[in-house]
Structure formats: structure tokens, C-alpha cells
């Protein structure tokens, strides 16, 4: 037993919060996207921390799956960003305004 799990849990929570804040406030799709990755990393850290204190491998396996999901999400997400950019490139509108109330 070394570092108390609380330290890691708080760290992860803070990381999650920073990610969420970024996602809610940033206006660039790519950076919002990175913020999602931050959040997922916070989750990973949480899982690993619990996994260590339970001596249960399950948490680590879950982290593994989260990473796979993150990779899949990135693949598709960046594809969407590229698709949007292709549409928008010619018009140089800096906001997505097609869909509004």
C-alpha cells in the first residue's frame, strides 16, 4: 500500500471536471473532442485505482475496453470533423448555423 486511493480518486475527479468544463465551453470541435479523451482518461484512472485497492483485475480489463472504445470513437469522430470541414471549407463560416431554433 503506497499512495492512498483518495489521492488518485480526487485527481481523477479533477481531471474529469477539467475535461467536462472544456467540453462545455470550448468552441472548437477538435478541442472538445480532446476533452472527451481527458474525461475518458479520468475514468481509466478511477478504474485502475479501484482495481488496485480491490486486487481485482476487472477494473483493469474495463480500462482496456474503454481504450478500445476511445479509439473507435476517435476514428469516427475525426471522420465526421473532416466531413464537416469539407462542407464548410468553401464558405468560411465559423459557426455551424444550419441547425438552430
Amino acid at each position, binding site marked *: 500500500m503506497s499512495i492512498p486511493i483518495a489521492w488518485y480518486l480526487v485527481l481523477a475527479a479533477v481531471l474529469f471536471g477539467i475535461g467536462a468544463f472544456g467540453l462545455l465551453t470550448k468552441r472548437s*470541435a477538435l478541442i472538445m473532442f480532446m476533452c472527451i479523451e481527458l474525461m*475518458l482518461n479520468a475514468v481509466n484512472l478511477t478504474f485502475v485505482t479501484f482495481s488496485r485497492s480491490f486486487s481485482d483485475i476487472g477494473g483493469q480489463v474495463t480500462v482496456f475496453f474503454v481504450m478500445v472504445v476511445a479509439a473507435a470513437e476517435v476514428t469516427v469522430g475525426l471522420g465526421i470533423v473532416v466531413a464537416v470541414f469539407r462542407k464548410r471549407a468553401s464558405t468560411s463560416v465559423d459557426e455551424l448555423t444550419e441547425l438552430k431554433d
Partner: protein
Amino acid sequence: MKLVAPSIHYLAIAPELALLGGALLLLFASALRPSRISNLQATVVTAASSIAVVVIAFFQWSDVASHGARTTIDHAIALDGFSIVASAIVGVGLLLSTLVAHDWAKRANVRNGEFSILALAASSGAVIMAQANDLVVIFIALEILSIGLYVLVAFDRHRAASSEAALKYFLMGGFASAVFIYGAALVYGATGTTNLSSISYFLGKNELLRPGLLIAGGALLLVGFSFKVAAAPFHSWAPDVYQGAPSPVTGFMASIVKVGAFAAFVRVLISALGTQQDTWRPIFWVLIVLTTFVGAGLALVQRDAKRLLAYSSINHAGFMLLGLWAGTVRGAAATLYYLITYAPLVIATFAIVTLMGGPNDTSHAVESYRGLARRQPWLGGAFAILLLAQAGAPFTTGFFAKFSVLSAAVDAGGAPIAIIAMVAASIAFFFYLRWTLSLYAEDALDAPRIVVPWPTALVIAFGVVTTIVFGIWVGPFADLAHKATLLFLP
């Protein structure tokens, strides 16, 4: 080191195998055929897979009826009445959507192959969600479903709105997934497992004196689910996405996502966190009030048909949540019944919306529906019936759907929330009625005639007929939902 692989009950995973098999078949075929696979072939394969899901559901049902509900693959997935019915709904929803999409693809001159592959794979995600008995599996299934949909939403590359919608959906969906899995992490910390049965077992055996971690985790799971089912205040993506997505996809999304997400939601709340009912109920209370009112209220001011229907679906989500709020067997059955009846209804509605969108899928102003029933009495009449059913007019399935959740809520001691929901329903009823009325307006008789291809006509007819027939002959579906829930995994 000897590795003992878990036993697999193949019948339990047969639906997703059928769907993924269809997807892979199409994938290989499109790679190996000298000429591309035609839209017809893609549609046939998709339809066959979805019919297979329904057929498998019958076998599963008899299996569960005789052997009882059970879990398989090391308790990762559950085979019970609830999951069977939910996956059958997914099958039916996919079948209907693919028929609509077939016509749309033909009209819009789009290749249907990838569309079908993605739809099949996304549906398999929904099926897995319905069966999942582990938070990790739910998470992965959720992603399968969502990723498929992100792409489907962006599928129409002729409209900028389509990819914009996909981007919004993606960002919100990613956020929701992250929140969900963080919730799962905290629940894992609180209970030492992610398996729903084990969580339930743990919480049943141990009274948590300090349930903070569990509460935090549960709340985050709830937020994650709320995003997926578009419950206010986590609904903000839905109108944009519904509007931007290609219309057949919107119908698909409105039905399949709701089925998958609510099925998993029910399982998590009632099966795993059932003991914590007192904690999550107040949150739901707020959620339901917001959702029903936001859905109904904002729909009133919409000018775009798809946006309007998006808010309407938010409103419906609020009602489905009402069944969850009850948290009883009756509540679960009510939500299931709602899903059973809602899926064909909403797909048929969007089938007509798809037709109305024209070849470019762009003319979706509510105004353009004026006088539809005068120009084309059958189409307009069908749409009127569908709208009334969505509103919850008596003697349609829409009414009994609302009735079932309300009765479950009242049964669980929620008369006030039921009344509040009814108030929202009255607002909702109004905008449906107003729309229906405009179908009979007389000042727009010269709009071009809409050609109804027979597959779409079939879907619309199916939607209308089930709505009316099972709105009067209520017994079968009500019994089905009830029995399915009685066969719920303990």
C-alpha cells in the same frame, strides 16, 4: 495455466449474431462482387436479418418460458422476457426502417450498401444493450449503437446539415459515454463489480451505511442514460440531430435508440439499483417534469417538422421515464409496452416525413404539410392517425402507452407526477392536433403530389394498422409486456 472458457448459450446471443452476420455478409459481398451490390440486395439482406431476429425471439421466448430467465457467458448477458421482447422490437424497427430507407435511397440516388451495414451493426448494439447484464457490456453496446448512428446521421453528404448534426451528436454522445462510464467506475468502486447481478447481490447483502460513492455513480449513470434517451435537461442535441439527419435515419434513431437505451436503463435501475429506489426517485421526478414539459412546450413553436417530432420524442421519453420512476414490475412492463407501441408508430411517422422531404430530403417545413389530407386523402389520413396516436388519442396504442406508464406511476404512489405528466400531455396533444388540422387545410391544394412507393406504403400501413388494431384490441401487447417483465431476471 488452464483457461476455462465460459459456457455460451448460443440461442441467447443469436439475435446479435444474426444482425452482425447480415452486416458482415453485406460487407464481404460488396467487396467481392464485381458489380456493386444493388440497393435491393442490401435491403433484402437487412430485412432477412431483422426478420431472423424476430423469429429467434420466438424460440427464445419458448426457451425462457420453459427454463426460466438466465444469464450466460459468465453472467455478461441476460436472456429473459424483457430482453427478448426488446430485441424483437429492434428487429421490427430495423425491418421497417430499412424499407423506408430503401425508397429514400432510390429517390436520393444513394447507394444503400453501407447504410444497411451500419444500420445492422447499430441494431446489434441496441440488442446487446437490451441483453447486457454488465455495465461494461452496456457501455460497449452503447458505443456500437452510437457510432453506427453518428455515421448514419452524417450519411447524407449532399446536405451540410447532415454532417453538422453528426458532429453535434457525436460530441454530445461522447460526453454522455464518458459520463456514463465514469458512473460505472464509481459504482464499481462502491460495489466491487460492474456486473448488474453482482451489484444487486452485493447491495442486497450489504446495507451501505455510507452510500455516497454509489449515489455519485448512480447519478452519473443516470445522466449518461438521460443524454442517450434525450431527457431534459440533457436533450439539447436531439432537435438538431433529428433535423439534420437523413429522415429515414431519424425514424430509425427515434425508435431503436430509445429501445436500446431504455431497456438497459430499466435493467440498471430496477435490476441492479432497485434497492436504492428512494435515492433515485426524486431525481427522476425532476427529470420527468422537465422532459415532458420541455418536449411539449418547445414543440409548440417549431416550424420544422423533424424538429417538432424531435421535441415530441423528448416528450415521449419523459413518459417512458415515468414507468422507470415507478420502478416496479408494472413500471418496467409499462415502459416496455410503450416501446413496443412507440417503435412502429414513430417509424411510420418518419416514413411519411421522409416522403414529404422530397428527393433532396430538405422540405420539412410544417407548412408544407398543409392540405396534405385534402390532396392525398390516404396518405394524409394515415399521417393524421399517426399524429393522433402520438398524441395519445383514445383507442390508439399511443393512448394505452401513456395509460400504462401513468398507471404504473399511480400504482407506485406517484399520483402528483402523473397529473403533472398529464398536463404536459395536454400541451403535447394540442400541437399534434393543430398539425393534424393543418393537414385538412384548404388553401394549399396545388402542391405537387407525393408518390408513395410500395415498401414505404407497407411501413405506413403497418404503423397505422398496429396503432389502430392494437389500440382497440389492447390485450396481446399488454399481456406480452406484462409477461415479459414477469420473466425478468431476478
